């Protein structure tokens, strides 16, 4: 077991190093002169070449690739995300502020997704192939095909523009979170419903269940002790996918609803070519993603004893 965890940790470390390297290489080789972009952003005007060169030296942009990479990764390991190349301010406090906006949104989306998909999947599987089931499957298929940004726009159109019930843009009141969270949540619900449904159906098909039933074990107990845990396994494994979905959704949803947060922070940093900020968000995402997937891997192995250590 310890060996398994060690190998998984080693794997995560290798992957994160690779991810950091890939990110840095992409930004390092980005077209255009970042020094010029920074200089223009700072002085808001056409700048002479000497100033651009000065900016270049200041920002360490004239260094060798590996030197620059080390200069970035070293502080990163102790949690220093560096300074914005445009404003010169530390990235980390800004990042924390953005997380404080994004986290509630993502959580609300996840909760809406779970609250919609669990009952829907349960009701659908009461009678597989029945009209409720077919409706649920159809809804889930359509839901999976609707891009988050379009759904968001439709919700704005309906509830904010036409009906005027809910606010759409910004974060002024708590009610402002409803539409963005709904956009995220319905997307999550669509994929979760499908996975839960097939998980429950598979769990009900376990070969030993009829024997329990014949011996008079109550249906409710069977559902609780044998169906629910089994159906939870695929849900745990797709949590990584849901996380990806949430993060991607957050980017689009924050842009559409003009909300501050990690997603809109990332997009505006890209547009301003403020690469330290971009790197910070990307690395943070990768750490989060890899950590969650590592945990999922461990939980999965704990839930399903059939998955041995051979897959490590």
């Amino acid at each position, binding site marked *: 077991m310890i060996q398994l965890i060690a190998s998984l940790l080693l794997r995560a470390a290798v992957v994160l190093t690779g991810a950091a390297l890939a990110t840095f290489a*992409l930004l390092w080789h*980005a077209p255009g002169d970042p020094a010029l972009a920074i200089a223009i952003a700072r002085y808001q005007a056409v700048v002479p070449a000497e100033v651009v060169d000065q900016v270049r030296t200041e920002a360490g942009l004239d260094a060798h690739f590996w030197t620059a990479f080390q200069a970035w990764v070293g502080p990163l390991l102790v949690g220093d995300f560096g300074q914005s190349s445009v404003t010169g301010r530390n990235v980390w406090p800004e990042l924390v502020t953005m997380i404080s906006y994004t986290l509630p949104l993502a959580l609300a989306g996840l909760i809406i997704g779970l609250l919609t998909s669990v009952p829907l999947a349960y009701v659908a599987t009461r009678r597989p192939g029945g009209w409720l089931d077919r409706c649920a499957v159809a809804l889930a298929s359509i839901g999976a095909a609707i891009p988050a940004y*379009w759904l968001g*726009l439709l919700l704005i159109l309906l509830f904010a523009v036409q009906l005027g019930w809910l606010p759409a843009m910004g974060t002024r009141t708590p009610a402002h979170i409803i539409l963005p969270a709904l956009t995220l949540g319905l997307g999550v619900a669509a994929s979760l419903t499908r996975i839960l449904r097939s998980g429950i159906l598979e769990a009900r098909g376990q070969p030993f269940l009829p024997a329990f039933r014949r011996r008079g074990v109550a249906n409710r107990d069977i559902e609780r002790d044998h169906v629910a845990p089994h159906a939870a396994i695929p849900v745990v494994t797709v949590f990584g996918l849901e996380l990806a979905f949430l*993060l991607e959704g957050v980017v689009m949803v924050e842009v559409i609803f003009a909300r501050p947060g990690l997603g809109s922070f990332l997009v505006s940093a890209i547009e301003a070519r403020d690469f330290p900020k971009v790197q910070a968000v990307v690395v943070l995402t990768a750490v989060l993603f890899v950590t969650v997937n590592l945990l999922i891997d461990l939980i999965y192995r704990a839930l399903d004893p059939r998955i041995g250590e051979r897959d490590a």
Partner: protein
Amino acid sequence: MRSVGTLVVVLVLLALIGPMLAPYDPTQINIPHRLNPPSLEWLLGTDALGRDILSRLLHGARWSLGLAFLISVIGLCIGTVAGLVAAQGGKLTDWLMMRVTDTFLAFPDLVAAVVIAGVLGAGTGSLIFALTVTGWMRYARVARGIGLSLQNRGYVVQAKLAGLSPLVIARWHYLPSLLPSLAVVWTGMFARAILGISALGFLGFGVQPPMPEWGTMLLDARIHMRSTPLQMIWPGLAVVICVLAINLTGDALRDALAEQKDQKGTA
């Protein structure tokens, strides 16, 4: 496989013939007739520059579907080669190959695509690059998984003993068994590419105006949501219909494959 064939034919036809059916030039600006509601003259109305929305949708099919097809097929090739190299190479090759795959999987793929396309600068080239780089890993995993399971089959051992080169073995013995599963992955990745293209277009990082791409059209329409809400419906609907059709085909294909396996299992 037949359903996938039909789907490909329909979508290719749509991308090829669609623009021919368009009643107007999709980039023809006609300011006096801007933001017209649907009418007999303009079936779906006109946009903020007076361009015919139906024509733009039909021409947009070429961008959205054509690029998505290209991206998903490039990813298919890269991923299959990577997966087969991992499966046929030694333990070290396999480990390295899979860690490279994991590295690319360390980001949610759309977020990575947004960063790549955004950093490289808007344009079709960086759009294709961004979505391909983030879209080959699933093929690689599937190809490797099946490849490893084939490794100890009698006929693969025989081919190795006969002294056939890994390339020939891959071509003769691995690829034919891989294709059905790869086709299922491909449908998913095709749909993903359509969503990705329009998402990047919507963020302004994708296909550039005046090209009629569905995501870009949505970005334009968003500003006029209050005055002409219908304008926002069409491009989104086009994306949803295409993605839904592809996903349903993929589901059908997967079910058919599972059934085939079951039959083999009981036979």
